[in-house]
């Protein structure tokens, strides 16, 4: 008579091969000729699929081929079996804490044959719940425990379990394969677009070189790689600088060789037209990438120090020029003075507008997500905020345009106030000033660092 649950008739059955249990080892288990020790993975698998169904506690003997094993009651039972005398494979079973297993106990029909131990022994780790009303226990297996887990009560169930496991594995494989294919596709697409970009760049480089521009190695232009608009502008600007250098040299030699006003006039007109060109280029660039212009990354570091709304400050330039342009007539002095004041006032007005824009943008982005309670309300709120913020960002282009207009018109006004020769000297002075700033930048970048 089994010393525990009398409702579990057990019969010894040899030939476990007939069962569909995975890889178990047969070892001496006292009188029980074989033990069924599942491999861990299977045990864990078993835990996730409710393979084990509990039979009624009424003690139906569910026949298992070939083991007759009855399951416990519907309540899950955790049992730690460590029959000292049994030579059960000791395995680590890292089951999760709250894993619930419906386990089946193997009971021997002949406890007296259960080695020296009695299953009902109060060995501290023997904890077979014989209580049919055991509440669901967490499994909480210790690592060093050996577990003997019996198969389900029917071969069908084990078949289900196997199929489920296999099915799941197959599904996972399919998923992994799919993901791998997608990754590969994305990678290939990336390669294609990179190749395209590379060809474009090569063409551009070729064109630029043909025009006699010195293109340094990619290092210099790394910072302007922020999209086509930015890079295109940088290239155009470099070209523009080259041309301006040429024109200024022509002007300088004309001034030094005391060329006539008429000759100077022609050269100066060319230079003024060339200034118009850069403002036109900037206008296009502002449409493509306003932030690139605002960042000043297309200028050298020292120039960037003085950056105002994407360029130089006309009022400052005039201040610098006044001293170098003497002698000026009274009228010219007044004119230049007024021009300086007007440009200053205009710059201040634009600066204030920019500040208002910043404040407005900040307010838009920070305004309450506290108000709305519903999540859909929050989303709508967020999107509304973003839409508004987008609108405000759009006005930046307008500000840069006005700032450039200011610069362009200051130059034109200055040209009108001054005589030809004075204009010539002014343009040389402006160019020299910026040249020195650029040279300073180069020196700075090349400075020895400890």
């Amino acid at each position, binding site marked *: 008579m089994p010393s525990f649950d009398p409702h579990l008739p057990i019969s010894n059955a040899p030939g476990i091969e007939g069962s569909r249990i995975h890889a178990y080892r047969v070892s001496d288990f006292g009188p029980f000729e074989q033990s069924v020790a599942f491999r861990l993975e299977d045990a864990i698998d078993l835990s996730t699929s409710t393979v084990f169904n509990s039979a009624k506690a009424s003690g139906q003997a569910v026949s298992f081929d070939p083991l007759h094993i009855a399951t416990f009651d519907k309540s899950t039972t955790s049992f730690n079996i460590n029959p000292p005398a049994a030579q059960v494979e000791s395995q680590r079973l890292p089951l999760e804490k709250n894993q619930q297993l419906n386990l089946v106990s193997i009971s021997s029909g002949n406890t007296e044959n259960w080695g020296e131990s009695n299953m009902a022994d109060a060995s501290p780790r023997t904890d077979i719940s014989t209580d049919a009303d055991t509440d669901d226990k967490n499994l909480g297996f210790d690592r060093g425990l050996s577990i003997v887990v019996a198969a389900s009560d029917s071969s069908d169930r084990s078949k289900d379990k196997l199929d489920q496991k296999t099915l799941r594995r197959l599904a996972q494989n399919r998923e992994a394969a799919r993901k791998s294919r997608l990754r590969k596709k994305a990678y290939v697409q990336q390669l294609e677009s990179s190749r395209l970009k590379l060809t474009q760049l090569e063409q551009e480089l070729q064109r630029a070189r043909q025009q006699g521009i010195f293109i340094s190695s990619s290092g210099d232009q790394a910072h302007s790689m922020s999209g086509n608009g930015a890079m295109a502008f940088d290239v155009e600007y470099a070209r523009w600088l080259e041309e301006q250098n040429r024109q200024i040299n022509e002007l300088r030699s004309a001034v030094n060789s005391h060329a006539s006003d008429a000759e100077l006039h022609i050269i100066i007109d060319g230079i003024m037209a060339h200034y118009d060109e850069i403002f036109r280029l900037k206008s296009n660039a502002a449409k493509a990438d306003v932030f690139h212009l605002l960042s000043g990354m297309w200028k050298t570091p020292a120039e960037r120090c003085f950056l105002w709304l994407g360029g130089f400050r006309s009022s400052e330039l005039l201040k610098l020029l006044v001293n170098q342009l003497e002698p000026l007539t009274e009228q010219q002095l007044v*004119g230049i003075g*007024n*021009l300086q004041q*007007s*440009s200053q*006032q*205009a710059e*201040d*007005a*634009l600066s*204030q*507008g*920019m500040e*208002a*824009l910043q404040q*407005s943008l900040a307010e838009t982005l920070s305004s309450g997500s506290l108000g709305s309670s519903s999540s859909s309300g929050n989303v709508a709120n967020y999107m509304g905020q973003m839409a508004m913020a987008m*609108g*405000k960002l759009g*006005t930046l282009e*307008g*500000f840069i*345009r*006005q700032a450039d*207009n*200011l610069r362009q*018109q*200051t130059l034109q*006004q200055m040209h009108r106030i001054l005589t030809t020769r004075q204009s010539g000297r002014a343009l040389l002075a402006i160019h020299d000033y910026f040249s020195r700033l650029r040279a300073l930048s180069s020196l700075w970048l090349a400075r020895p660092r400890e």
Partner: protein
Amino acid sequence: MDRVRDLASTRAAVIFTKSSCCMCHSIKTLFYELGASPAIHELDRDANGREMEGALRGLGCNPSVPAVFIGGKYVGSAKDVLSLHLEGSLKQMLIDAKAIWF
């Protein structure tokens, strides 16, 4: 258009704006800096705002705001106003319209 004209004649300097427009803020600042006290009409706060905006566009103002009138006459958009100022003409116009005195 009539409404625009009417409002534009109420004071020596009149600026049509929108409350959210920051360039309008710049032009207003410039006028205040010059000592003028322009009348400000916010189109988005006016019941007839849409029509008025259309009328301003019809005058050639692009963008529609800010739109500046001095002495009842249409002067232009932000760009026009700043250009006039650099030329030195804006101040004179304001003086002529008695918006400022010096």
